[in-house]
């Protein structure tokens, strides 16, 4: 897999050779506006209208926990976060 990844990264490196004015513009990623000049624009994810901050009904907790690998008393159950030995743990 290392060889395949190297080949893919080599290919992607062609981006460095493209003369793209504007440099890195992370906020322009993805399905942003299709442009000006009368062309209808596509709503970008970051341009989505803010939703009202009000609680809405959601599915019952039991419905979601039915898919959990392990649950107990309405909570997700996982093995101990800290390893059994060592003063500070650090296993998680």
């Amino acid at each position, binding site marked *: *897999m290392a060889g*395949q*990844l190297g*080949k*893919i*990264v*080599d*290919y*992607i*490196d*062609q*981006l*460095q*050779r*493209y003369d*793209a*004015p*504007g*440099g*890195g*513009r*992370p*906020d*322009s*990623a*993805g*399905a*942003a*506006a*299709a*442009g*000006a*000049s*009368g*062309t*209808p*624009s*596509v*709503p*970008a*994810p970051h341009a*989505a*209208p803010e*939703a009202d901050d009000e609680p809405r009904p959601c*599915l019952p907790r039991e*419905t*979601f926990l*039915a*898919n*959990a*690998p*392990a649950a107990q008393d309405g909570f*997700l159950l*996982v*093995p*101990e*976060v800290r*390893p059994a030995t060592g003063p500070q743990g650090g*296993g*998680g």
Partner: protein
Amino acid sequence: MTHRGDGDLWELSAEELARRIRGREVTAVAALESVLDRTARVEPLIHAYLEVFEEPARARAQDIDRRLAAGSGGRAGDDPGPLAGVPVVLKDNLSLAGQRLTCASRILEGYVSPYTATAVQKLLDAGAVVVGRANMDEFAMGSSCENSAYQQTRNPWDVGTVPGGSSGGPAAAVAAGSAALGFGSDTGGSIRQPAALCGVVGVKPTYGRVSRYGLVAFASSTDQIGPIARGVRDAALATQVIAGHDANDSTCADRPVGDLLATIEDGIAGMRIGVVQEIDAADGSGPAAGAAAPAAEAAAPARGEMAASFEAALDALRRAGAELVPVSLPSLGAAIAVYYVIATSEASANLARFDGVRYGRRSPGAASLAEVYFDSRTEGFGAEVKRRIMLGTFALSSGYYAAYYGRACAVLAQMRDELTAAFRGADVVVTPTTPSGAFRLGEKLDDPLAMYLSDTYTTPASLVGLPAVSVPSGFDRRGLPLSLQIMGRPFEEATVFRAARAFERQVGWQVAPSFRGAEAGAG
């Protein structure tokens, strides 16, 4: 075998089938049984379905028939809707409450959808009958269905070739007649490419046209749900049904859908069709190809065939009265590089939710929380998914962010500007859908980059959020389908369907796969 004529019900278009069922000429149960019989015959050859919902589908069809019967004898009719009794198949990443969903991944073994996707609910509200869930590349990552953890779907035209991907299951099922319509997701070409390889019509709607609520996320800035159909009219009807605003998806646009069938037969006389000039240089052989050159050389004969087919498609558009205008998309050669940076970056974030804690598979041997995370992902994800998560985390890492993710966004901005300019002089823009017809099983399995390049022409519409339809255009030398891609301005699906329908009429395409290579013929 042919899909035309007055033969079996499974051969009918969705539109015609719904018309007959609503007119009570045939029952939804009869339509379903015809499709189930067909499925039983072709599944051993193509393996498109991961699961057939046989009994739930029968109950649903009976309910449709009861509702129609309740409207007889002068009583007010209870019309189930425009897809009344139409058997449909879902890609295994679309949620249907109470049914299993795996994304063709081991990590979602045993998962049952707790709710129904908005697009699927719209199908049910329109009277559709869900026949089952279909195979795909794991988490929609792939172009051949070979990345499924469960089975290898085969192309109905030649069972020794791939059906394309990632929506290869729905595409193969629709082409083979084991569903009237299929529904998949398209992130970089995952509906259009398998539709092209299976000789059927595939639609990626405008970003924001269809709600993704209930679709398992891959790359959220380009994921779209769309239909696969045996004809353009059915594809438009299906798009019409699933489109529209949904408060549960904040990226879903609050814009009217309109009637996508109203102008579909109006033809393209005088329509300005933009022809992308950089086709030949774009699939790895261009000046910026770098490491892709060997793959491109190997694909050269196929490219020649595609170029000839594309020229013939342009002639057909000209005969239909369109005005062809050259448009320039210099960044086309970088589309795959841009796409694989942005899509893998988003995937690395989206797939972090599969942790063996909340749902899906947990490694049975994990003794600590760290082992739950590590071992569940190690055992649950396949090679391609791991590859893309690693690429995405690499592209987003602090030392490389500007060089990869930032750079990809800059080239994407350039691509958007180029397409915006193209659409100033053209109503739609065309390219081939794929660089070649279906490839052999295993042919590109050990060369992920060669596999990625089969999405060269489909990624720009995904990255920029444009609607695009793939329509069969002819055959390669092996007799396998090739297709034309028609892209439109945002939310102008009606124009794209009008062009696609005019092209379909010119070509006179028949979905008639021969199941070549199968020991016992199915048709």
